[in-house]
C-alpha cells in the first residue's frame, strides 16, 4: 500500500478524491419512435427518400431553366432580379439543401442510436514502457557508436546541412533578379507629361488652382488624336504596348496638382524649383504597398491611399501625415519646355513605390 502510494507521488498524480455525489451514470436509453414502431420507421425511410428525390427534381429543373430562360431581356422579373438568375440560384441551392436535409433526417431517425461514453486515461505511457524505450534508445546509440566516433557524427551533420543548399540555389529559378528595374522608371530629362487616357500634352496655364490631373509620361498613353500621335512619332516617341506598358505604367503614373504657391512648404527633398507656379507632380504609387492613389482633398492638399489610409501632404513634399507608409511620396521635378509644355527636369531621384530589401535607406 505504501509502495503504491510512493509510485503515485513520483508520478505527480493527485490522490483520488472520494466523489461527494455519487456518479448517476448514463440516463436509461429511450428508444425513438422509429426504433419501436415499424410504421414510423417506414415513414421516416420514405421521408428521407423523398428529400433525395426532391433534390434530383431540382437538379433537373436547373438544367431546364438554364436552357429555357432568357438572360438578356428578363432582368427584373421578381423584385428586381432576373428570371434566369432566380431560377438557377433557387434550383441549385435547393438541390444541395435537400441532399443535406435528407442525410440529417436519415441520421437522426434511422441510423444507429446508442449512447457512447469514453473514459479518459492519463496521457503518459506506463513506467515500464518508458523505461524500455529509453533502454532501447541508449542501446542503439551505444551500438552505432555515435558518441565514440565524432568524425562520422560531424560529417553526417554536415551532409544533412549541405543537402539544404541545392534547395536554396533552386530558388534562383523562380525568376530573373530584378536588378535595377525597381529603381528606374521611364521618366527622364525632358519627358513630356501627358493626360492619362487622352494622351494630350499639358501647358501650365491650362491648370487652375485646385486642379488635379492624373498624368503619365509621354509614350505610355497612345493618344486618342492621330495628329498628336503623328507629332509624337516625329519627335521619336515610342508608344509602349502590352506587358511593357503595364509594367512601366505601374511605376510611372503621376498626379499633377496646382495649388497656391503661398500654401507650399519647400525643403531639401522638395526644393522650390521643382514646382512650376504652384504645380507639383508626385508619384501616384503609395510607398506602403504600392496602391495607386488619387483621393485628394483640395483644401488640405492631403492625398489619401484607399488601401490602408496612408495620407500624404502634397503641399509639403509628400510628407506622411497619417497611416502605415514609411516614406514620403517621391516628387517628380517639373519645368517648362521651350515650346511651353510641362516636362520632367529629370527622372525620380529615388525608387517609387513600396520599400524592398535592396533599396537604399535614407
Amino acid at each position: 500500500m505504501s509502495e503504491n502510494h510512493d509510485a503515485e507521488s513520483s508520478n505527480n498524480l493527485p490522490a483520488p478524491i472520494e466523489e461527494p455525489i455519487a456518479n448517476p451514470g448514463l440516463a436509461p436509453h429511450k428508444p425513438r419512435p422509429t426504433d419501436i414502431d415499424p410504421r414510423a420507421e417506414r415513414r421516416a425511410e420514405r421521408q428521407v427518400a423523398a428529400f433525395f428525390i426532391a433534390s434530383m427534381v431540382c437538379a433537373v429543373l436547373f438544367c431546364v431553366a438554364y436552357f429555357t430562360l432568357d438572360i438578356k431581356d428578363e432582368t427584373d422579373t421578381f423584385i428586381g432580379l432576373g428570371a434566369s438568375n432566380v431560377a438557377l440560384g433557387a434550383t441549385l441551392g435547393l438541390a444541395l439543401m435537400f441532399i443535406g436535409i435528407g442525410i440529417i433526417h436519415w441520421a437522426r431517425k434511422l441510423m444507429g442510436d446508442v449512447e457512447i461514453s469514453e473514459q479518459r486515461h492519463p496521457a503518459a505511457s506506463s513506467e515500464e514502457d518508458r523505461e524500455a524505450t529509453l533502454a532501447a534508445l541508449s542501446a542503439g546509440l551505444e551500438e552505432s557508436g555515435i558518441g565514440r566516433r565524432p568524425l562520422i557524427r560531424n560529417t553526417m551533420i554536415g551532409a544533412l546541412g549541405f543537402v539544404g543548399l541545392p534547395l536554396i540555389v533552386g530558388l534562383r529559378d523562380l525568376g530573373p533578379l530584378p536588378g535595377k528595374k525597381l529603381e528606374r522608371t521611364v521618366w527622364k530629362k525632358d519627358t513630356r507629361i501627358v493626360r492619362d487616357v487622352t494622351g494630350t500634352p499639358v501647358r501650365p496655364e491650362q491648370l487652375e488652382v485646385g486642379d488635379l490631373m492624373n498624368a503619365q509620361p509621354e509614350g505610355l498613353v497612345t493618344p486618342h488624336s492621330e495628329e498628336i500621335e503623328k507629332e509624337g512619332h516625329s519627335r521619336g516617341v515610342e508608344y509602349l504596348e502590352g506587358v511593357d506598358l503595364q509594367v512601366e505604367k505601374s511605376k510611372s503614373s503621376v498626379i499633377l496638382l496646382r495649388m497656391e504657391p503661398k500654401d507650399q512648404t519647400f525643403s531639401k527633398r522638395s526644393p522650390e524649383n521643382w514646382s512650376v507656379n504652384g504645380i507639383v507632380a508626385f508619384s501616384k504609387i503609395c510607398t506602403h504597398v504600392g496602391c495607386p492613389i488619387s483621393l485628394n482633398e483640395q483644401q488640405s492638399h492631403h492625398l489619401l491611399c484607399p488601401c490602408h489610409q496612408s495620407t500624404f501632404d502634397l503641399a509639403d513634399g509628400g510628407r506622411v501625415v497619417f497611416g502605415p507608409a514609411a516614406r514620403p511620396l517621391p516628387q517628380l521635378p517639373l519645368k517648362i519646355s521651350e515650346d511651353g509644355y510641362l516636362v520632367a527636369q529629370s527622372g525620380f531621384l529615388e525608387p517609387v513605390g513600396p520599400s524592398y530589401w535592396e533599396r537604399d535607406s535614407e
Partner: protein
Amino acid sequence: MVMLLGLLFTGTLYAAFAPANAEKGSDNQDEQIAAGRELFLVGCAFCHGQNGEGINSQNGQYGPSLVGVGAAAVDFQVGTGRMPMAQPGQQAATKDNLYSDEEIEQLAAYVASLGPGPSIPTSDEYSLDNLTGEQKSEAIVRGGQLFLANCSACHNFEGSGGAMPWGKKAPSLRETSDKHIYEAMLTGPQQMDVFSNGNIAPEDKAAIIAYLNSIEENPGYGGFSLGGLGPVSEGMFAWIVGIGGLVGFAYWIAAHSARSEKTETGSEETNA
C-alpha cells in the same frame, strides 16, 4: 452732311443688327444682379461677408471668399441645397433646395459680377445629343476610361460615392443631375479637386456624364447590387445573412431532439 449721313447709316445698321435684347439684356442683368444682391444679403452674407469677400475668424475660415468662383459654383451649391448651410460641419450636406430657379439665377448673376469665373453650362455642353450613335458609344467608352482614371478613386467605380477622412464623404453620383455633375467638375466644390476645361476638355466632361448615365441604364444581371459598394456590403451580406442563416439552421437542428416528449407519449399510447 456726310458725317450726318454716316452717323444715320451706322445708327440704322446698329439698330438693325445689334441685338435688341442686348440692350434689354444688360438692363435685365443689372436688375438680376441687384435682386441677387438682395437675396445674398439675406441668405449668404452672414458667412461670406456683405460683399462676398469671405469672413475669417480666429478659428480659421468662417465662409470663403466668393470673388471669382463664378455662376456655376452658385448654381451647384444652391441648386443642390448645399448652400446656405444649415449648420457648420465637416461638409455641407445636401437638403431640399429653398430657392426658385429664378432666384438661383439672380444669386448666380450677383456672384458672377464679383469676379470672372466659370459660367453655368448650357445643355449642349453636358449632353451628347448632337453626336451620331457610333460617335456616342465611342464617347461613352472614353468617358468610362476617364471616369476610372480621375473620378472612381473617391466616387467609387459605379459612382456610388465613398467615405473620406474626418467624417467627410464623396457623394453618390446616381441622383445628381447632369448639369450639377458638370458644374462640380468645373468648380471643385468643398474638398473635391477642380477639373477645369484645361484639365479635362468640355467634350471629355460630357463623355464622363454620358458614361454615368449609361451605367445607370445598365440592367443589374448579378441580382441585388447591394448599393454597388463592392466587397464591403457584399461581404457583410454574406457574413450576416448567409453564415448567420447557416448557424441558425444548425442551432435549430440541434435544439429539436428526435426523441421528443411528444412522440414518446405518443409511442407510449400506442404501446398501451
